[in-house]
C-alpha cells in the first residue's frame, strides 16, 4: 500500500510530499501504520532513500484524547480511530490539519483553541446551574477533546482570529448551563464569535470523534 505524507521539518521550512511503501498489517489503524513505518526498520521512502522519522502526536491510542488529529485521504480524523480497511483505494494520503501552524510533519500547534477560550473568559466560576438543562447534553459537551477536527472541516473557520468554531460553542454551552449568572454574557460572546457567523453546514458534527451534537448547544444558545 502506498502512503503519501505532506512533510515539514520545522515551523518555518517548506512543505513537501514524501511517499512510502507500507507492507504491515492491513487491519491496522492509521496510527498503527505510522508506528510501523517509523519503527519496523530504518525508515526509507519508496525510492529507497533513508529519511527522517515521521512526527505525529499521540497519547491514548483509543480515540479519547484527540492528539492524533490529521487529514486522512482528505477527511479530518483521528489516526488511532481510522482503520486502513475502511479507507477507499490503494493509497493513504496524510497531511497535517491545515488551520493550525505546523510544528513538524503531522504535528500542529493547536494553542489557538485554548487561547480563544481563555481570552473570552469561557469558564464556569460559581456553579449555579440553570434550570431545565439536559444533563445528557452537558455530559456530551464536556467530552470535547479540543482536537480541532471540527475547525478543520468548518467552512467558516479560517485561522481562529474572530470566528472560533464548534469547539468554542460547546464550551460556551457548558458555562451557560452551569452558571446562570454568566448565561447572558456568555450568549453574547457566543453570538459574536460563533452564532452570528456560523452558516450551519454542521459538518463539525460529521467529523466529531465524540459525536457531540453541537446543534443542541447552538439551539440553547441561539434562543
Amino acid at each position, binding site marked *: 500500500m502506498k502512503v503519501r505524507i505532506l512533510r515539514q521539518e520545522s515551523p518555518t521550512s517548506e512543505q513537501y510530499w514524501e511517499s512510502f511503501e507500507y507492507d504491515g498489517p492491513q487491519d491496522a489503524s492509521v496510527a498503527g501504520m505510522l508506528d510501523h513505518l517509523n519503527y519496523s526498520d530504518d525508515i526509507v521512502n519508496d525510492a529507497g532513500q533513508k529519511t527522517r522519522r515521521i512526527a505525529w502526536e499521540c*497519547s491514548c491510542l483509543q480515540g479519547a484524547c484527540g492528539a492524533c488529529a490529521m487529514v486522512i485521504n482528505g477527511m479530518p480524523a483521528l489516526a488511532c480511530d481510522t482503520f486502513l480497511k475502511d479507507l477507499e483505494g490503494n493509497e493513504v494520503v496524510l497531511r497535517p490539519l491545515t488551520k493550525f501552524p505546523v510544528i513538524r510533519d503531522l504535528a500542529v500547534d493547536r494553542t489557538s483553541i485554548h487561547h480563544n477560550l481563555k481570552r473570552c473568559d469561557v469558564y464556569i466560576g460559581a*456553579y449555579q446551574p440553570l434550570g431545565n438543562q439536559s444533563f445528557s447534553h452537558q455530559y456530551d459537551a464536556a467530552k470535547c477533546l479540543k482536537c480541532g477536527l471540527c475547525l478543520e472541516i468548518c467552512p467558516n473557520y479560517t485561522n481562529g482570529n474572530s470566528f472560533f468554531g464548534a469547539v468554542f460553542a460547546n464550551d460556551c454551552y457548558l458555562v451557560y448551563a452551569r452558571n446562570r449568572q454568566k448565561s447572558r454574557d456568555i450568549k453574547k460572546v457566543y453570538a459574536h464569535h460563533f452564532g452570528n457567523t456560523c452558516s450551519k453546514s454542521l459538518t463539525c458534527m460529521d467529523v466529531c470523534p465524540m459525536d457531540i451534537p453541537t446543534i443542541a448547544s447552538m439551539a440553547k444558545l441561539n434562543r
Partner: protein
Amino acid sequence: MKEVLVIGSGIAGMACAVRCAEQGAHVTLVSPYPSERSQSVMAAGGINAVTEQCEDGDSVASHIEDTLKGGCWIGGKDAVTGLCSSAKDTLAYLESIGTVFSLDQEGRPLRRAFGGQSHKRTYFCGSSTGKQIVSALVMEVRRHEAAGSIERRLRMHFHSALIESGECYGALLYDEQARGLVPVYASAVVMAVGGQNALFSKTTGSVLCDGYAAGRLFLQGALLKNLEFIQFHPTTLETDQKRILITEAVRGEGGRLFYEDDGQRVYFMEDKYGPKGNLMTRDVVSREIYATGKNVFLDISFLSDRLISQRLQEVRDLCRKYRGIDVSKQPIPVAPSVHFFMGGLAVHLNHETNIERLYAVGECASMYHGANRLGGNSLLAALYGGRVAADDLCAREDAPRHPDFARTRAREQRLLDAASESKSVFPVAYMRDMLADTMRAHMGIARTEESLTQGLVDVEYYQSVAGQINYDTSVSAYENYSLAGILATAHASLSCALAQRESRGSHWRSDAPQTLDDYAYATLVSYNDGAYNVWLDKEREYES
C-alpha cells in the same frame, strides 16, 4: 507572592494548581500537551466516597478498612484515613465546579459496585468519569489563567530538578520551541507526571506517561517506594498498539468472567469465590485469570440494552470499533495488562518527597494504595493528594533565595547539544522496546528470583550501552534524553521485586507465595553512585 511550579496537567496537577491559586500563589503549570491529552481522561470507572446518601451500613470506616485491606495492610492508616474522610468533600468540590455525575430518575447521584469494596460507593459520570472531571478542572484553571494566578506553559518537558544540599529550588525544563533548557525557579515544585507505562510499552494508559521523571529524580537523590507493586488490570482488550481497558464497572454492573471447557462455560471466579467472585480485587482476579491458562471472556450480553447504553456505552463503542465485537451478542475476550503503578516517588503525609520543597501527587507518587489499588480510589487520590500538597506548600515559609544554577544548566545543555550532533538512524524506541520485552518477561504477574535476576542483568546491560549509542535525532530531544531515567526506574523496580521474598497484593512471587509479617512495610529504594539500595520502611517514615 509564592511561586509554585506544577509539572503535569492531568487531574492531580490541575487540582493542586487551582488550590494553590485559590490561596494566593502564582502557579506555573507546565506540560508538553494540554490537559485533554493527559491519561486522566481515560479513567473510566468512577470515584469512591461515602456520603449522606450512602448504601445502608456503609461508613467512612468501611471505606478506610476496604482500602487498607485491598492494599494488603501496607498503606498508611493516617494517609488512608485522610483520603477517605475527605472523600465526601472531594465529591462536593467536583460538583461545585460543574462535574456532571450520572443521576437516577429522582436526580440523585448513582453509585456502582467496584472490586474489593464492601458497599456500592463509586460515583460516576457514565463511563468517562475522568474526562468529565478533566473538563471541569480545565474550566477552573482557565478561570485562574484569566485572573493571572495560573500560567500554563505548553510544549515544555521536565528535564531535571534544581537541587542543592537536599533542597529543591525549581526545575530545568526542555522548551520544544526554543529547543533548549530553561530554568524555572519556584518556592516549591510539584511533580504530577503520572505512572511508568513506558517500562512495559503496551499498557492501558497513555504513551506520554513514561516514568522518566521518577527515574531522573531518583538519580538526583529522591527516594522511590513500593515499585514492585504494579497493578495488572484483569480485563483488557488486545489491540494492535495497546491494551484497551474494559472498565471494572462492567463487572460492577453484573458482567461475568468465564472460560470454555469442552464447550461448557466455566464461571471460575464465581465457582471459587461465590456470587461476588467477579468483583474480587484486581490482583486476585488477574492472578486467577493467569492461572486458568485459557482464553477468558467477559460476558455482558445478558444485560439490558438500555443499561449498556446508559452506563457502558463507551465500552460498547470501544469493543465495536477496535475489535468488531457487539457486546450485546458476544462475550469480550479479556486478559490482564499493566494498568497502574502503586509505586513511585516516596512522599510524606504532606506529599513532600525526601527533597525539601519537592512534592509529588497523583500516580507518580506512592501513597494510599499499598500493594493493590481499589477501583475508584485513583481519581480520589489524585484530587485529594493535589490539594494536600497545595495546602502544605502554601502554608510554609518562603524558600530561601535560590543558588546560581547557571553552570548546571550550561552543563546539561552541552550534553544535549553533543547528543543532537548524531547522524545515527538508530532510534531510542528500539532500546525502549527491548526494555519492555524484558519487563514483560521478568516483571509480570508471576515472578521468581531467577527471572528477576535475569531481568536485572538485561537492564544493567541496556544501561551500560545506552549512554554510548548515538540515537536518531530526527525524533524529539525529550524522547532521546529520557531513556536514562526510564532505565533507572526499571532497574529500581526490579531491585524492589527481587528484594521482596514474599507475595503480597500485586507482587506475586511464585517461588515465595506466602505473605510474611516481616515484609508488612513499604519498600524504599535509593540510588548512590551506581548502587541501588533497597530496604523496608519499618519506621513508617513515608506513609504513617
